[in-house]
């Protein structure tokens, strides 16, 4: 178990080792959804929620099921099933508790099952041997980091769309360049905190 203060881990996973900008996870939805600020916000919220819950659950599954029963070779399948189940349950709970939120999240909630950032965070958590409290902050921080990045990108894209961009670079091209510059800015925090 690495000796990192959970709070440090929290800020590190938002800025210096942002799951999107330094680990490239969750790119597909990042690029396709960030066209609209409103949907980005909804998806960011959903990802943060699912990521925190699944990281904690997968931590428990790893410690109490996978390791004692020596099921390491089934790890990926088990993690994916946990994630799919959480998304399904969360969908039902949100539908009951807050129909407005359910409608605003819409299609994004089920899509999260195949968001690589969720599985990625669980795998990093397992690989780096985080304790329960570290995992909570890591999952939550990564979610917030993802949310922050997608909302920032959506805001920038709204402006870039109206700017004169060379035709072949329009759309995905300029978006990738924007992401690259964002990544550089986020890595700029690296001197402050470091994990791994």
């Amino acid at each position: 178990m690495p000796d990192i203060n959970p709070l440090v881990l929290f800020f590190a996973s938002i800025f210096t080792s942002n799951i999107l900008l330094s680990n490239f996870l969750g790119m597909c939805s990042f690029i396709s959804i960030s066209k609209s600020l409103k949907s980005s916000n909804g998806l960011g919220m959903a990802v943060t929620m699912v990521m925190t819950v699944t990281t904690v659950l997968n931590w428990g599954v790893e410690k109490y099921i996978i390791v004692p029963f020596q099921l390491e070779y089934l790890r990926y399948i088990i993690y994916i099933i946990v994630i799919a189940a959480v998304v399904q349950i969360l969908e039902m709970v949100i539908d009951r508790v807050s129909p407005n939120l359910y409608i605003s999240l819409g299609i994004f909630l089920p899509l999260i099952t195949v968001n690589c950032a969720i599985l990625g965070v669980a795998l990093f958590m397992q690989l780096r041997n985080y304790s329960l409290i570290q995992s909570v902050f890591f999952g939550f921080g990564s979610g917030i980091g993802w949310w922050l990045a997608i909302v920032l990108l959506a805001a920038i894209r709204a402006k870039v769309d109206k700017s004169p961009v060379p035709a072949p670079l329009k759309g995905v091209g300029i978006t990738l360049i924007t992401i690259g510059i964002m990544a550089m800015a986020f890595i700029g925090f690296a001197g402050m905190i470091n994990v791994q």
Partner: protein
Amino acid sequence: MNKYKEIFFKNVWYENPVFVLVLGICSTLAVTNNLKNTLIMTIGVLLVTGFSNLTVSLLKSFIPGKVRMITQVLIISFYVIIVDIVLRAYLPDVSKALGPYVGLIITNCIIMGRAEAFAQSNSPLLSFWDGVTSGLGYMVVLMVIAFFRELFGFGTVFGYRIMPEGFVNWTIMVMPPSAFFMLALFIWIVKGRGNNNA
């Protein structure tokens, strides 16, 4: 035979999953700072896409529509686990360098996308070919990106020193932002060419 050729060119060039559809760049952009790792990673993706397409196509009439997604995910994870175990046994250092990214092939959107869009409605052999060529299209792009990143970032190609003695490594090339810049650059070039031809 013509159909196979058509699929090949479509998947590798005209509808290249990375350039045109921008799918599945998540897990592999991370490993493109090194040619060897990229090659092994993309071979893994290629095999998983091919075989999961084949399996989905073989089983398509037995899978109820409602549980289609989760069944596909399970089929994909099955092959990913095989790739992971083989890598761990025969190439332990590469497996370590790739870290969690091998497991993340499961959530690679290309594989899911091909299973859903092609294998569900085509014959097994054709689906297998479609998966393999999709993986090939993916491989070609990532190998080119990895080539430039390794060349400028470390001054090497496949670990062999290429750049002259006095060359100062461009550290930015092996850091995350350059992966985005490189991909953007390639999309720019490819799309620009397309426009000239049209």
